[in-house]
């Protein structure tokens, strides 16, 4: 059987720092709550659904182009007739 390795705290910190450098790439979750919930038939919370709906609407606004080729913004109000 292998003997347990004795390591100083400094060496432990050095190894852990090197090892956890990849955490900069960790997105916080692995998976997509929307597809997971759909696959399992579980409802998403209302606040999360609202958040995703706003996110989607913002994405669609970015994709939508007006006929003149400029990005579509919020609809402008007509100036009040004087």
């Amino acid at each position, binding site marked *: 059987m292998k003997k347990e390795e004795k390591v100083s705290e400094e060496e432990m910190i050095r190894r852990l720092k090197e090892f*956890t450098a990849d955490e900069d790439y960790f997105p*916080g*979750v692995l998976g997509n709550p929307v597809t997971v919930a759909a696959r399992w038939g*579980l409802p998403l919370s209302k606040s999360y659904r609202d958040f995703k709906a706003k996110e989607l609407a913002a994405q669609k606004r970015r994709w939508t182009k007006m006929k003149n080729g400029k990005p579509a913004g919020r609809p402008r109000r007509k100036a009040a007739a004087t």
Partner: protein
Amino acid sequence: MHFQVLVAGRPRPVELVLGRARDLRAISLWRAPAAVAARPAIRDTIEFARLASKRHRHYLRSILTATSLGEFQAIITGSSQAEVALLLLARADWFPRSPIIGLAQCRRTYCHHIVLEFLSVHPAIVGGIEPEIRGVGKGLVYALVELSGATGVPLIWGEATANSASFYSRILATPGVQDHFFIRGNTLERCRQQFRRILFGKLD
């Protein structure tokens, strides 16, 4: 089972357990610190905590669920084709916001593989709220690899997303991960070795 993470640059132990019904409440009580609550990744962590809690409650009522390594081994010895639900939890009694700092929802399939369904880390850690804690996400994946190796599971697989593919590529040293990943063979063995040598992890 345990491993080490870095908390404000110092090593602290994290205990690994397989979740029981009583752990689900602690998970469903995860809250996002106000300063980071609007970030999409933070919202995802909270939503996954809710889903994990609901899904595991459903699993507890419908398929075999292991709440310890010994129980997992007993189930698969007794029924080689059993589907077994596993909720791997990272517990830290030194973390003030919750006793649970991360979770990985998994399932052992009938052919003795493990599917990683999703993984989530506490929103305060993802949001970088003081003290900075590093190594929970990677540690959970490596702990799952160690658990698999110790129980003779030859393959862990799962779906990668646009946000997680580069993370899997890096931690598995497998360039070009796209929408799926496989941990097996030399990769599985290397991750197990690193879990023990660098994360000072142990199945105890």
